[in-house]
């Protein structure tokens, strides 16, 4: 597909990389020549210098032949304007709109302006944080089938009863309806196979209905209750979205914000939240706010370095669930080694959403890509497909399908009911099917067949 990306910031760059790797023809547009040149040198794309919100520039970038225009500049208004102009040229548009003032109007904007997608990274990040806080034992929680099914990632502690157990023994020993999808051990990542034996410090992802997951975690001595109180450092947009969500869940929230005006604003909009006007980057302040007794701590300041320091400190003084927000994606391998529990990359969340949309845009034979998550970066993806037509997939029970190596059919949702598939089950038209695989870039489900 021909795709134009307006804005060469962090998200623009990640998108460029992933879309080029996905085999698309990408043209990037930015007003700053330096930024365009850097990206154009790094990736096999075309760069256009100019204001993406003008018709002339978009014309130069080839809007007439483009299939999709993605506006990810720093300004919401400009992004929307880009979309309006691109829309007139007859191409699909995606805009990043991050301000809370516009976010409530997102559905209206989407419909009235004819946008294909409005993406709000801060809101998406807040939602992801909220999911983890409801299930604090997990590092990451993804949902499929409108929340009917959850994919949870967690780390096995040293004394876990699961250590030394093989995957096929799980159901007989624990009597839980869950399915193990992937196991990460150090740098290695495995798609689950029956004879794989768990070791301590493995990172495991399982798929299950929320209730079943709850029982499973109780049986392996994990905390499965949502947290009761949260301390948040930094009162930016993510905090605002997050507090709203947590208030609805009835969780007690304290936000520390150093800017007086912002703190006052927050206290105005967030009635149920305690807003503290202080600089969070101070041991005294954190101790005063009882960080050592909190059940969860979320570091959401604007600086990655501060967030990392705050989280490391929190880890040393308390047993709280710790969530760290990181803006820069470049150093994720180093940060991953810091053992920081849950890390949220809002930029990745944005690009992941857009990539999913792009992949779903490709003409498919009989299945539609519905949801897509990166389980292990660059290695394993989990994708939810809706089966629209009869095909080879629906012809036989799973055990008779000739699946490719590294493919796991993790769940089938049929008429609102979740099936964790065994070999005898088969796929039917109308099902949503969750596929976990190391074949990156699936856009049609028939690709999982040999």
């Amino acid at each position: 597909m021909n795709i134009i990306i307006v804005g060469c910031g962090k998200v623009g760059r990640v998108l460029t990389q992933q879309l080029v790797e996905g085999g698309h023809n990408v043209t990037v547009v930015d007003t700053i020549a330096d930024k365009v040149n850097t990206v154009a040198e790094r990736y096999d794309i075309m760069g256009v210098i100019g204001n993406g919100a003008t018709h002339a520039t978009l014309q130069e970038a080839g809007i007439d032949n483009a299939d999709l225009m993605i506006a990810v500049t720093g300004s919401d208004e400009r992004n929307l304007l880009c979309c309006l102009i691109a829309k007139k040229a007859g191409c699909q548009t995606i805009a990043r709109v991050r301000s809370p003032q516009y976010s409530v109007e997102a559905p209206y904007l989407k419909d009235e302006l004819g946008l294909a997608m409005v993406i709000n990274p801060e809101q998406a990040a807040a939602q992801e944080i909220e999911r983890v806080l409801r299930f604090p034992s997990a590092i990451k929680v993804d949902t499929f089938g409108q929340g009917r099914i959850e994919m949870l990632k967690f780390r096995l502690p040293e004394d876990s009863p699961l250590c030394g157990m093989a995957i096929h023994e799980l159901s007989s020993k624990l009597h839980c309806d869950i399915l193990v999808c992937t196991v990460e051990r150090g740098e290695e990542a495995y798609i689950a196979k029956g004879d794989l034996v768990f070791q301590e410090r493995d990172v495991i992802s399982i798929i299950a209905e929320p209730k079943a997951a709850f029982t499973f975690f109780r049986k392996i001595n994990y905390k499965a209750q949502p947290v009761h109180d949260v301390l948040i450092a930094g009162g930016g947009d993510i905090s605002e979205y997050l507090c709203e969500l947590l208030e609805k869940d009835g969780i007690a929230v304290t936000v520390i914000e150093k800017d007086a005006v912002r703190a006052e604003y927050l206290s105005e909009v967030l009635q149920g939240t305690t807003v503290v006007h202080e600089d969070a980057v101070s041991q005294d302040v954190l101790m005063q706010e009882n960080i050592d007794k909190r059940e969860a701590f979320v570091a959401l300041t604007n600086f990655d370095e501060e967030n990392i320091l705050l989280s490391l400190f929190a880890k040393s003084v308390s047993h709280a669930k710790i969530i760290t927000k990181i803006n820069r994606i470049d150093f994720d391998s180093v940060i991953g080694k810091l053992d920081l529990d849950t890390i949220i990359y809002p930029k990745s969340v944005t690009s992941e959403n857009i990539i999913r949309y792009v992949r779903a845009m490709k003409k498919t034979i009989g299945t539609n890509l519905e949801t897509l998550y990166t389980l292990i970066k660059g290695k394993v993806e989990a994708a939810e497909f809706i089966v629209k037509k009869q095909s080879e997939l629906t012809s036989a029970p799973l055990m008779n399908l000739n699946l490719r190596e590294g493919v796991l059919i993790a769940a089938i949702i049929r008429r609102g009911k979740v099936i964790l598939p065994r070999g005898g089950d088969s796929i039917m038209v109308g099902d949503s099917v969750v596929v976990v695989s190391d074949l990156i870039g699936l856009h049609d489900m028939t690709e999982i067949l040999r």
Partner: protein
Amino acid sequence: MNIRMTVYILGLLMMFEAVFMAVPSVTAVIYHEQQLWLFAAIALFCLICGWLMTLAKPERKNLSARDGFLIVALSWIVLSVFGALPFYISGCIPHFVDALFESVSGFTTTGASILHEVESLPRCMLMWRSFTHWVGGMGVLVFIMAFLPISGGQNMYLMKAESPGPSVSKLVPRVRTTAIWLYGIYFVLTLIEFILLAFGDMSVFDALNIAVATAGTGGFAVTNASMGSYTPYSQVVVTVFMILFSINFTSYFLLLKKKPKESFNTEVKVFLGIVTFAIVTISLDIRHMYRTVSETVRHAAFTVGSLISTTGFGTEDFDRWPSYARTLLVMLMFIGACAGSTGGGIKVSRIVIFFKNMHNELRVMTHPRQVKKVKMDGRQVEGEVIRTIHVYLACYLLTCVVSILILSLDGHDLTTNFTAVVATLNNIGPGLNLVGPTSNYDVFSTCSKCVLIFDMLAGRLELFPIILLLSPATWKK
């Protein structure tokens, strides 16, 4: 430096060179020439070497800017050395430096020769000589890129280092698609010229040779008389195509995309302006030498087209022309073709930007507070581009001066030495006096020939890759 990737690309290059040698091999089959086995053997050798070099697929495919320059420089050296083997082993050119000179002159589309009797060469050798022009014209790495995805995303460094012009722009987002477009336009234009020539008075063999030599703006002909022995019709066709091949290929692409306005940009306008000016004034200057106006204009137009496009064909010995005509022709040699064409020289766009910047700087001297940016086709020219052009011109001047100085050791006159360097550095071919259109480069010593080989390579690759290859700083970790 990514050594494994370098070896891999050089391996690919050798395999492609083996494929290129199929062209003279087929010629040898058609004319029952015994050099067939020679070409087959060398091609096989290249194929095996290339295959061995590509056995180990590099794990790390990313290239830095430095890798790009070095790979391009090394590629052209390897290409030329192996391209010289047929001339040398067959005994057509007994000295290796001479054979290398001929091969480099071919690939760099210079067209300067050390041969006294071109006609005495077997036809397959002539075909190989002309065909090297075609390969070198658009660039061999660009050719490989059109066929194979070489590396992840950093192909741009290779393309930048190999393509002529101050700034390289893609036609479409993908390097590979861009390369396919460029070669597609190149091939079609060559084909049209071949058909037009073959319908004239030329034999198919001559038409093919002249067509590929014009396409690459090379200038190797199949007779000593160059283009002089053909009819006026053929000469006019070649004149038109020499000028067509020295226009930026992006313009043709835009024309195909139905954007005639963008296609006819400043560079093309200035280029055609210079060509017209030169043809008119030279015609006036040489009018008493020929009987009819049409003959005068034809010779003037052919020579102007030949030199500004840096092809180097000749219909007339312009060395006998009056002083003004000769001087203007030498100046045209410096200007050269448009960026992004197959021609050499400094390139019209560089000269336009250079003069615009000069004009601005002079204005700023009288109004020190004035802020003025260089603009071309309604776009601001980035500071980096202007800086690179200045560095380019400095390198150009230095190469020129040093080369002339070394050549002077042979004891020839200044005009000979000066035009020999200018004609090789700008990839033209013939100069004046001893290296004029009717003579050849055999008058120089081996040392001077090596300097000229360097100049041809440096000129084709626009100086930086070859100079960086020799700079010790490039090789430091």
